[in-house]
């Protein structure tokens, strides 16, 4: 039997969840034995060329590009997993939810302390840029998500346990210490 194929991405996230995958230490060698990575920052494959079994999503959706990528993952992965607080509830980027978008953009490009060199008061509006959403959306409020791994980041233990469970079909082990929201 061929190895299960895993794809990963980071939407509005900080790559901390991806770092946590690496925290499984030497078990990464086992992981390579267990699964094949496809589209992922880990192997730098940029495009889906085949159907994947598992998609790991880090980060929520703060712009139109995130939505496209997430929908693309939904289309190309049999199982989608929200990994980390940002994917599950928007996380820190969602602290802006509730602040009018105009105010956010003004602060970021016109009034903030670090925009001194934006002398012409340019608000980026090129068509190539993703459009900002009215708020940051948890992934499951955009597409159907099958599983959730909370944490900021989720512990390496939790990610490892989950992957093993998904691949082997065994029950996911959730000892008290692995499920945390921070």
């Amino acid at each position, binding site marked *: 039997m061929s190895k299960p194929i895993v794809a990963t991405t980071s939407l509005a996230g900080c790559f901390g969840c991806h770092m946590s995958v690496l925290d499984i230490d030497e078990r990464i060698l086992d992981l390579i034995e267990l699964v094949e990575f496809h589209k992922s920052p880990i192997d730098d494959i940029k495009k889906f060329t085949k159907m994947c079994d598992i998609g790991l999503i880090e980060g929520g959706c703060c712009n139109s590009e995130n939505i496209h990528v997430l929908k693309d993952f939904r289309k190309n992965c049999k199982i989608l997993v929200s990994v980390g607080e940002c994917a599950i509830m928007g996380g820190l980027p969602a602290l802006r939810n509730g602040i009018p978008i105009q105010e956010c953009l003004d602060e970021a490009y016109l009034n903030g302390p670090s925009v001194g060199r934006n002398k012409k008061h340019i608000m980026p509006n090129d068509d190539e840029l993703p*459009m900002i959403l009215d708020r940051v959306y948890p992934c499951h409020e955009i597409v*159907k998500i099958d599983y959730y791994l909370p944490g900021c980041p989720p512990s390496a233990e939790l990610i490892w346990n989950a992957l093993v469970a998904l691949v082997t079909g065994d029950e996911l082990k959730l000892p008290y210490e692995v499920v945390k929201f921070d």
Partner: protein
Amino acid sequence: MATSVQNIIEKYNKDKTRLMDILIDVQSERGYIPKATITQIANALDISHVDVEQTMSFYHFFSDKPTGKFAVYLNDSAVANMMGRQKVKETFENETGIKFGEVTPDGLIGLFDTACIGMNDQEPAALINGQVFTNLTPFRVKEIVRDIKAGRPLDDMFTAAYGDGENRNELIKSVVVNNIRKKGPILSEDYTPGIVIWKKLPQMSPEQVIEEIKKSNIRGRGGAGFPTGLKWEFCRKAKGEKKYIFCNADEGEPGTFKDRVILTERPKLLFEGMVIAGYAVGAQEGIVYVRHEYKYLQKYLENLLQGARDRNLLGKDIGGIKGFDFDIRIQFGAGAYVCGEESALIESAEGKRGEPRDRPPFPVEKGYLDMPTVVNNVETLCAAVKVLLNGGEWYRNFGTKDSTGTKLLSVSGDCKYPGVYEVEWGFTVNDILEMVGADEKQVQAVQVGGPSGSIISSAEFKRTVCFADLATGGSLIIIGQQRDILTDIVLNFTEFFIEESCGSCSTCRNITYLMKNKLEKILDARGVKKDIDDLVAWGKILKVSRCGLGQTAGNPILTSIKNFRHLYEEKIQKDKDFDSAFDMASAVKESCIAAGRIPTLN
């Protein structure tokens, strides 16, 4: 202003348990309750600023901002909408140039939505500075706004004749009509006020009174149906320096208005019932808690109480019974449906937020001011008079075995003869439809017992109105074929519950609006089958709420899914099992405007 507030505070003896009365008086005198006044009241009553604010901010009719010299509260209940409220509302907005929720810049007129004001048989209706205006039409609204602008006093604005019966009384002078369509023992004119107090009570011990009530098998008429005799007995046996009789006249269940008719036409019967209850349980004080919407009856009712005192039907040694002292006062609410729940009603009468209490202890053990208290519905107390007059045996001749006596029904909606019907328990819904002039073929549904009850389809019209089958506090709303049940009824009622939740329970405060959002998703054609399943599952969580409001807040959705599931299924998407209802165009709209770019949506 400070002096007038001071006078109000003095009028209530600086008693913090009378905070409701103080706030009501300030609100009606000033049109709002400014922050400085809150501080003044707090200081005078020796309580914290936040104590006053928590009561004040709880009630719909208190405001910290001016509500206009003429504050218009237009009923927003389902039936008002069925009867043409939308056009009336638009006319108010066009004529005044403001939206609902606003006050005209000159401070003359304020427009506000309000929950059912107990006029479902004469909708659309509004309260303007406490006066009731019924059967509103766009034409009538233009007249009213014109009159207000011309500076005419409110009393001169009525163009129709005053209503029937006591509505014409010098102390009421209201255009409200009673629409009494069927009389029985309670609404019967064959009643001599004081007859039980003079002729019966002196010959009976309190225990004998309770025995007679028990014999009648009468159960509480508010909807829950607790045996009245048992309640009185519990209270009689409870220990307490003082005991209280409360009459619950807070009928806030949308579609109910029978208590308004009793308060107008048979208030003496009610007061006599309270005296009897006072005698039975050993109470010295009775309080009628009347909803704010019926404040137009205040002078009339207070005058009657004075008359009763003058005739020794209240006061000391009532009915010549040595040592039997009892008096009644009227406590007004200020707009909170939840105060119809007995313990919330007691909290409110103590000057607090209308948050239901945890039970046990029950009010009969620890009620008003922590003393044993009986809370009875208006109708129950009235029936008690007739029970004592004619005997418990006689009362049992009416109705069914488990639901004895008669019930006052408030009938409204799509029928020829909306109004109040006093019927024996045991009528079927079909009987009632026939009685009120509703063509069964034209009836799509009947809302039994108001929003907290259930919406039933013709398949269930054979069912009987009684405690064992279709229990009801008396509200029946008839919904014709032309209505859209989900938007006109279910959504309106769900919004009502959201608005009226006290917010104390995490369940009622949250689940109801989450269910409403889900219902709207289905109405927007973005629903999937799982959304219906979720609604049913989430509705169950509400059942662990503290009070009846929370426990039944899901009923509009739950009972309509049960009895009209096809309406939901017609609206959901059959080809999908997931839809987040996310809409890219609306999600990026704001940021594209802010950045000055045209959204690229493909």
